């Protein structure tokens, strides 16, 4: 949904810590960036209603009082959403470890909440709940998956020695969880909580697109409609700043509480589905797992239909969608139209993912070979993660057009940041022994990169892909919803205004099925790869 909802970052605390440690380089990059912006604004973009000068933006923000009341409103929604979403995610993650059989099911539930575009279920939420609660829910949904993955990875990162020790002393799974895993999970979990802070804010901002009296999204909408370009930017800036502060603040709090005292962990299994997660149960085959995911999806779906108590007018049951797509009177034309818009979206997303991944990998390689580049670029990457995509989309569309290029750019942006961070982290995590061998045999840094780093960095590419593939689809859907005239996102926007709920549900199903499939395929590929090369 947003740049920041990406869970693909390596769940380590290093990025955050180093962010504070790189003040000088960051400051230089920041100043250069501002100067360039000012220059462009008064030259290239002069007279166009696109890019106001930063000085102008700052003056507007100052005049408008930095949107304090709207900020307070959005933050109250976001903080509640953050608490609820993260609370549920952590509980479920803990449950995963006590009952490993649940893991596949819960993770697919997580992927589902991640893959369903918030813009698409917003209309339903606003029927079931009052506007405030609906925005809290949207905010909670935006953080759930990020933290679930982080918490599962963290809880699993406990060192084998500690676990075995607990076992030897007669401790069961429960004791392992209580005495070892929770301690071990803290670093990864903290990063998850940090990342989800801006994600929660952006979830609430998107909620504002469904109406409201105040809130950052509400005033951003009004500013855009009134063509108050500098105000639009000022609000985007304030949102970004606050998102960044929420990130840093969470990190700071965690530091105060000593969350980053070193814990003995197993580096091996940070984000991968560890091979021992199925201990005591027969490993599920790929197909079995996939079927399980479908079953869970259907279960949740029926649950929502039953619990909400809404009529069949809004909430279509799985049968209704089945009828709509496969057996009804116009089934074949319905199916064709859903599939054709889906394929357009997948093309957009695929292009975006490809461009984003290539940029990310090249960036990661550059950064791994020069610490100066890393120091200079990383803070910008962290800031980029906090920029509300909703605010960026119209700008990107204006600069790059509303066709394939614009949509690809948006989709690529969604892919780029998490992939970059994950791979940079993956490249760092390699056996020193392997590097030493290259160096001792007279190999250059370049040799080390080619022969060792890339090989060991490959799993990180898989890890990133698990998240960035659904992310790219989501980015494409949002871009289509907001700016493009094609694709499933465009069709869904059309469905909402025309109350064509059957097609809306069918489209959501199509997106979720594709995202789940991609996630499962990449997970399996990743597992195979790790097994084969024993990394």
């Amino acid at each position: 949904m947003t740049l920041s909802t990406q869970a693909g970052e390596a769940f380590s605390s290093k990025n955050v810590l180093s962010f504070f440690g790189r003040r000088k380089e960051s400051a230089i990059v920041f100043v250069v960036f501002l100067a360039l912006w000012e220059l462009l604004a008064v030259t290239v973009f002069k007279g166009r209603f696109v890019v106001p000068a930063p000085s102008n933006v700052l003056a507007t923000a100052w005049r408008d009082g930095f949107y304090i009341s709207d900020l307070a409103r959005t933050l109250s929604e976001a903080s509640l959403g953050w608490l609820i979403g993260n609370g549920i995610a952590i509980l479920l993650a803990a449950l995963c470890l006590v009952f490993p059989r649940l893991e596949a099911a819960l993770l697919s539930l997580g992927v589902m909440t991640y893959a369903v575009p918030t813009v698409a279920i917003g209309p339903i939420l606003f029927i079931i709940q009052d506007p405030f609660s609906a925005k809290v829910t949207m905010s909670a949904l935006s953080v759930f998956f990020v933290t679930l993955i982080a918490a599962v990875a963290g809880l699993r990162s406990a060192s084998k020695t500690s676990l075995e020790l607990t076992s030897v002393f007669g401790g069961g799974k429960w004791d392992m969880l209580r005495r070892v895993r929770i301690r071990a999970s803290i670093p990864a979990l903290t990063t998850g909580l940090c990342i989800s802070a801006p994600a929660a804010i952006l979830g609430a901002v998107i909620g504002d697109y469904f109406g409201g009296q105040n809130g950052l999204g509400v005033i951003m909408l009004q500013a855009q409609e009134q063509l108050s370009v500098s105000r639009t930017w000022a609000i985007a800036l304030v949102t970004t700043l606050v998102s960044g502060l929420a990130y840093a603040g969470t990190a700071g709090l965690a530091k105060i509480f000593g969350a980053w005292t070193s814990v003995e962990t197993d580096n091996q299994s940070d984000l991968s589905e560890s091979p021992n997660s199925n201990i005591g149960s027969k490993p599920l085959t790929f197909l079995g797992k996939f079927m399980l995911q479908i079953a869970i999806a259907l279960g949740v779906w029926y649950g929502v239909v039953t619990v909400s108590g809404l009529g069949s007018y809004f909430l279509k049951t799985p049968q209704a969608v089945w009828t709509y797509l496969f057996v009804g009177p116009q089934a074949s034309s319905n199916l064709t139209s859903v599939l054709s818009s889906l394929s357009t979206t997948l093309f957009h997303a695929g292009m975006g993912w490809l461009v984003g991944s290539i940029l990310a990998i090249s960036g990661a390689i550059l950064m791994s070979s020069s610490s100066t580049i890393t120091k200079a670029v990383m803070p910008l990457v962290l800031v980029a993660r906090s920029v509300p995509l909703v605010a960026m989309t119209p700008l990107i569309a204006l600069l790059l057009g509303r066709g394939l290029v614009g949509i690809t750019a948006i989709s690529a942006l969604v892919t780029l940041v998490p992939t970059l961070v994950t791979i940079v982290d993956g490249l760092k995590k390699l056996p020193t022994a392997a590097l030493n061998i290259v160096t001792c045999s007279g190999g250059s840094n370049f040799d080390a990169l080619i022969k060792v780093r890339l090989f060991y960095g490959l799993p990180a590419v898989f890890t990133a892909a698990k998240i960035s593939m659904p992310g790219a689809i989501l980015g494409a859907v949002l871009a289509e919803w907001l700016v493009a005239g094609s694709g499933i996102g465009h069709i869904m926007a059309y469905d909402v205004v025309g109350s064509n709920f059957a097609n809306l549900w069918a489209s959501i199903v199509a997106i979720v099925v594709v995202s789940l499939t991609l996630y499962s395929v990449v997970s399996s590929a990743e597992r195979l790869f790790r097994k084969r090369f024993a990394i």
Partner: protein
Amino acid sequence: MKLALITIIVDKRRNEEESLLADPRTEGEKEDSKINGVSSGTNADTSSRERFFSNVRQTTPPLLREPMSRRQLLGRGVKLAGAVALAGAIPEILAACGSGASASSSSSAAASSSSALPNVNLQLVYLENVQFAGSFFAEVKGYYKDAGVNVTLLPGGPNLAPEPIVQSGRALVGITHTAEAVQAIINGADLKIIGAGFQKSPTCIASRASAPIRNPQEMIGKKIGVSASNEPIWTSFLKANNISASEIDVVTVGFDPTPLATGEIDGLVAFYTNEPIVLRLKGVPTYAFLLNDFNYPMVDDIYICKASNLSDAKLRKQIIGVMTGESRGWSDVIANPDEAAALAVNVFGKSLKLNLEQQKLDAQEQNQFVADSTTAKHGLFWMTPEVIDGTIRSLAIGNVDAKPSMFTNEILDAIYHGGNKA
């Protein structure tokens, strides 16, 4: 009477955090708190407003639910009037209160016992700007309460469809666009169109005045921006004028008119009362023609409610109450668009930082859509058979199969007693 009315104003907006009547309103809140025995929330959020009122209902002891005595009311009024004078607050509203006094002389008692009135929601189709000024007047001046309902306005947004909100019962009445409402009914929603806020649709094709597009034929070969929500109207409008979609370079746009200003597009499907004015104030003069004037007659900003509610005596009364408030509110807008703009900018849309100049122009232009010879004869929102027929024919072009039975004047009939003002 003036004093009593000030009380009502204060009463209505007691939960609005940032009102022009800031000081007196705080007084009013304190008073209300004492009287009702609850502490009042000052959150501007609609839901908490809603919650607040339901609190009042539940916690007010039976004795206090009695209408306030005239003396109490006047006493409050005096205090408040003093406060207003001290604060030097909006003279327009006070003046309006004076002029409207005769109409609501019997209403003070009803308004003061507002805790006993049913709470209903009115779902707007967009954010609270001057497009809904009639509702603002109705709330501020107590027209809804006079008509026996406590109305909470629910602001909409670009991604919100009011039809499901009304269908689900979350709102009793909704303001929405015609094609969307009809589409919802076709898709199984149990809704009825009970009035037309705009006798003709303000949907227009706006172009830069330096390169004007004066009629549908001139769109051929040009780049026209259409937002996703305007798609259905756009498609049928082309058919109505025998233009094939392939003859025009259609660009999907968002909700802001920037692309027209920058020249990215030549024309924009817009709202006559919105984008052209915004652009004009930005120094980009525009030309605009109404779709309504080129083979595409259509009512707009229509009121919808659940069809089944019309046969429920209690709910029907509430719907009549909402529409009575709307009717009186819009009469005020027509009489005084500048004041309507001030209300939108300073009270309801305060946090939106609306531009007063723009809202004033908007309100002035908007009135031509609300009031015309039809409404002069039958009353505001009235839908004549000709108007309904034109709308149905326009919709039919886009294969939207509207039926006369989807429209009903029965609520307006009950308000205007026969739909003949004269």
